[in-house]
């Protein structure tokens, strides 16, 4: 132990004596480790960290009912929830919840927020204790109404009520329903859906108007179900019990419990630690996180290679010291340990810097709110887990960059080293091999990142050329949720009609319409269909995407009607139902036949047959990269639609119209919260957010990696020149011109770059295959990225190698030959 303390002291002194080397190494490692810790804090917050304020989360499971269209993980209906909750032999408690947007009436108007409508035992099942007041009582169970109570989230309590303890017993109006505040949730508790900022909890029994589903409807499957296992009960035992319940439910309700392929639906229990991201989204989320981790791991490896190269360069100057220590009786193991202590100190300092970088980036990420209508709130922070990971990674990093140089330097030729002849090592000797390999690795790694970054940049450029089937310029979007405000259908229709009139009259407005869904928005609705003249094959999914649109929708959006007519005022509430389908829809269901005049019908309470009156051009509905898909449009006037978005086509900047639109809304419905206000261009940008983020992250990290690689290359070439000074002097003495020497040195450096680039290109090609899912169109083999990036890298590398090469060309043979 004492030996270790002494080694740490010596190592600190050695590092202090070379502040330049130490600073460069710590900075390099700090950036590499910081990038890793930042991404790890994201992974930690999304996937790893147990839920805050929840007791024994390892005993929690989430329960899922398979979807009608097949997927294993779907929502659960209230009657099915009650059937599951009766399984008291395996579950200590079963809770249900349903997230929804709500509006909280305040002094300065309504505030839109997200909350959960929950079963009364919700907090008991999760094992959460109130920070103030109480949670829900057993007599507040059920969904019959009559218990108008609410629990506030800690953040809302602080923000809207100043943290006053008098809040208990006060009445608040939530989406128009008066509710009594009975408690406040503890800090950190954000409900059962990770990443969503949920701020109020209302029991199912509060008021039927807030439910948003029919508790008696077995087809209304919108509930998230969480259960607490009884002590000693395993997930497998719970699953066996759920299988039995599912069989019983199928036997009793065959129609509701049979999916589109005719198979019985199933119930699945998923441990809490695997359902922090809902299981249906877990695959893509884990894949994306793995991709990010892989990217930052490459950056760290490049940083390690750079520091290893610095250490190897330094090792050449330390061979004598090491030889002395060996001559005095130090064992090689002991010296390796001492050198590793130095590496460890560098890595820990780099780790400390990395923690600062991670704190900064997590604060930056936490403050980033993408313009979407769902409030995201991931609890990003540098906590014990991140620090622990940082410590482990720092130690691993120290070994990664420190071990090879330590092993190399502790194997000197003792006699020449002690006689100070070690510095005249021959050029091209084995000692130089590892450094070359490291530079090749750095070049390859940075090339992979830069090619991947440029593929995403190219995809963003590509996106501007894709025909999305609508014109995204100069279109303002204003969304309201009149359901949350308890508007009845007639009142809602009246509000929308008057709003359209008002806004149409504003100067600078070219067209106005309404629609339930915005193109490329996060919401995408599908409906099971019956298609006239089309016989579905066994197991074929007849669910297709659709939109509910107002008059003038197609003109306002700039979507062409290729045959027939658009939906308009003829399609009013009393008229025969009309639909417009897109070209893909027509091709798929009526190939070779005239779709106009054909009928389609949809399932559900308002299921009726509607006539196809027009065919619209194909467009992009969920993402710009999607293949053409069938889609249809229903007239808003012919269905109950109370959550429409106003679409305003303007002559100029749509944002300039915002004050006038706000004023119109205020005048028509004082206090009505605007759920979302954005432009279609911004909406398109949101849909490209993953690609944009990837381009920025890869671009920044790739540029950093390139910088590290060229610094490494410069170091290697400069080191080679210093080793070959005597040889170069002899060459000059024998008649070599400075240009000959420069060419020779440059060729050596660029040979490494060429090998690294070849390896990097092969890896980048493989990586582009993996990234294909994130790129819009093409197979990822983009010739521009694969030619331009290596050329750019070669250019930068050439400059970096030229500096020491030029110095080599100026070698004075008399000086060089005196070098011993």
């Amino acid at each position, binding site marked *: 132990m*004492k*030996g270790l303390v*002494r080694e740490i002291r*010596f190592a600190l*002194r*050695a590092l202090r*004596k070379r502040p330049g080397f130490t600073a460069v190494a710590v900075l390099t490692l700090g950036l590499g480790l910081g990038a890793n810790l930042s991404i790890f804090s994201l992974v930690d917050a999304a996937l790893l960290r147990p839920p805050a304020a929840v007791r024994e989360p390892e005993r929690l499971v989430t329960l899922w009912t398979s979807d009608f269209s097949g997927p294993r993980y779907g929502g659960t209906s209230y009657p099915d929830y009650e059937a599951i909750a009766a399984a008291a032999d395996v579950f200590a408690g079963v809770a249900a919840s349903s997230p929804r947007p709500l509006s909280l009436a305040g002094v300065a108007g309504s505030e839109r927020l997200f909350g959960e409508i929950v079963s009364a035992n919700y907090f008991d099942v999760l094992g959460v204790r109130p920070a103030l007041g109480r949670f829900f009582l057993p007599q507040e169970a059920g969904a019959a109404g009559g218990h108008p109570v609410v629990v506030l989230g800690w953040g809302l309590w602080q923000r809207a009520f100043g943290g006053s303890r008098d809040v208990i017993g006060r009445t608040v109006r939530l989406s128009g329903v008066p509710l009594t505040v009975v408690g406040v949730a503890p800090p950190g508790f954000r409900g059962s859906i990770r990443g969503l900022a949920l701020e109020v909890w209302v029991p199912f029994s509060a008021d039927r108007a807030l439910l948003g589903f029919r508790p008696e409807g077995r087809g209304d499957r919108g509930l998230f179900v969480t259960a607490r296992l009884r002590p000693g009960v395993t997930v497998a035992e719970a699953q066996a019990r759920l299988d039995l319940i599912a069989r019983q439910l199928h036997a009793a309700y065959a129609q509701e419990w049979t999916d589109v392929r005719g198979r019985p639906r199933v119930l699945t229990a998923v441990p809490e630690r695997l359902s922090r991201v809902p299981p249906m989204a877990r695959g893509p989320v884990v894949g994306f996180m793995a991709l990010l981790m892989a990217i930052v791991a490459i950056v760290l490896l490049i940083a390690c290679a750079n520091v290893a190269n610095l250490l190897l360069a330094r090792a050449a100057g330390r061979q*004598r*010291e090491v*030889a*002395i*220590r*060996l*001559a*005095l*009786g*130090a*064992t*090689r*193991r*002991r010296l390796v340990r001492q050198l590793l202590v130095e590496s460890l100190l560098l890595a820990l300092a780099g780790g400390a810097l990395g923690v600062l970088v991670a704190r900064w980036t997590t604060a930056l990420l936490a403050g980033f709110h993408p313009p979407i209508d769902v409030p995201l709130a991931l609890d990003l922070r540098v906590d014990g887990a991140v620090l622990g990971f940082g410590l482990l990674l720092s130690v691993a990093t120290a070994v990664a960059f420190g071990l090879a140089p330590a092993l190399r330097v502790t194997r000197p030729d*003792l*006699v020449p080293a*002690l*006689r*100070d002849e070690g510095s005249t090592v021959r050029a091209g000797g084995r000692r130089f091999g590892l450094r070359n390999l490291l530079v090749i690795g750095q070049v390859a790694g940075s090339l992979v990142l830069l090619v991947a970054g440029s593929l995403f940049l190219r995809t963003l450029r590509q996106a501007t050329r894709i025909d999305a089937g609508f014109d995204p310029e100069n279109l303002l979007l204003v969304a309201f949720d009149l359901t949350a405000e308890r508007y009845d259908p007639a009142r809602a229709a009246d509000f929308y009609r008057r709003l359209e009139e008002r806004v149409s009259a504003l100067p600078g407005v070219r067209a106005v319409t309404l629609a339930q869904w915005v193109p490329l928005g996060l919401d995408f609705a599908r409906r099971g269909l019956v298609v006239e003249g089309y016989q579905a094959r066994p197991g074929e999914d007849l669910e297709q995407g659709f939109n509910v649109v107002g008059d003038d929708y197609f003109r306002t959006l700039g979507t062409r009607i290729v045959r027939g007519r658009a939906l308009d005022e003829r399609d009013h509430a009393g008229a025969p139902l009309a639909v417009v389908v897109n070209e893909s829809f027509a091709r798929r269901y009526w190939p070779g036949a005239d779709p106009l005049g054909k009928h389609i019908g949809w399932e559900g309470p308002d299921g009726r047959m509607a006539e196809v009156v027009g065919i619209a051009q194909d467009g992009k509905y969920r993402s710009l990269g999607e293949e053409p898909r069938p889609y249809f449009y229903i007239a808003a006037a012919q269905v109950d639609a109370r959550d429409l978005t106003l679409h305003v086509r303007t002559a100029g900047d749509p944002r300039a119209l915002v004050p006038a639109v706000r004023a119109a809304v205020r005048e028509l419905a004082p206090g009505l919260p605007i759920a979302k206000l954005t432009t279609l261009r911004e909406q398109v940008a949101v849909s490209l957010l993953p690609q944009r983020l990837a381009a920025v992250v890869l671009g920044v990290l790739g540029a950093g990696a390139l910088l590290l690689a060229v610094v490494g290359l410069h170091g290697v070439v400069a080191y080679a020149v210093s080793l070959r000074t005597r040889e170069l002097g002899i060459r000059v003495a024998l008649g070599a011109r400075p240009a000959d020497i420069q060419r020779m040195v440059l060729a050596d450096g660029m040979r490494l770059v060429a090998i690294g680039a070849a390896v990097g290109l092969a890896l980048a090609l493989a990586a582009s295959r993996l990234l294909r899912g994130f790129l819009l169109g093409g197979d990822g083999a983009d010739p521009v990225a694969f030619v331009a990036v290596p050329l750019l890298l070669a250019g930068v590398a050439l400059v970096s190698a030229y500096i020491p090469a030029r110095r080599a060309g100026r070698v004075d043979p008399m000086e060089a030959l005196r070098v011993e």
Partner: protein
Amino acid sequence: MEPLIRLEGVSKVFLTDEVETHALHNVHLEIKQGEYVSIAGPSGCGKTTLLSILGLLDTATEGTYLLDGRPVSGLTASERARIRNREIGFIFQAFNLIGDLTVYENVELPLTYRGMSSGERKQRVQEALERVGMSHRMKHYPSQLSGGQQQRVAVARAIVGRPLILLADEPTGNLDSRNGEAVMELLQELHRDGATIAMVTHDPRYARHADRTIYLFDGQVMQDEAAVQQAAAARELQESGFRVEA
């Protein structure tokens, strides 16, 4: 009595780029406990190679080396390190002090590899530094000392572990004549106190400080200085085309 060092038929061949260089050839040598031996000879005759083999910094290609009666050929790297640490003290021409360590720490260094307690280490280091007259500079760094002072510190480091033998490789090579004399005086004193010393030097003035001088020429031990001169002359003639009768 068994000699401290015994070499029997030791040869050393260096292989570089398919060229064999015979640095030592069939060397027989004995050094007794308490002896002061100088190894002399012209540049390139194998003096340093011989000293490196004696100090276990290098291994012989052929022959047997017995140190204190034990053969060293089959020793592992860590056993060799242990012997270097406990039984051999080195003094180099280039001093070979570590620039990052103070005088005290440089002298202490061999003891730290033994796991000795800090109290004992301190006492030994102080004794050694007093012995060479450098105890007043123990907090200095090597760069703050003159060449002569650095070599005295190097001597202190060599003796601090109380080795069986001191190996000195041209200990005065980097010093002026005054400092060179002082270091030779110091070795002389150590010898008078019982130290066994083997010293490589090409300077006959310093070689004469020793009890006995071993002459090397082309890797072979010669009888005396005259034999070296004769062999050198013979080779010179041979290289210029004359045939010489032995």
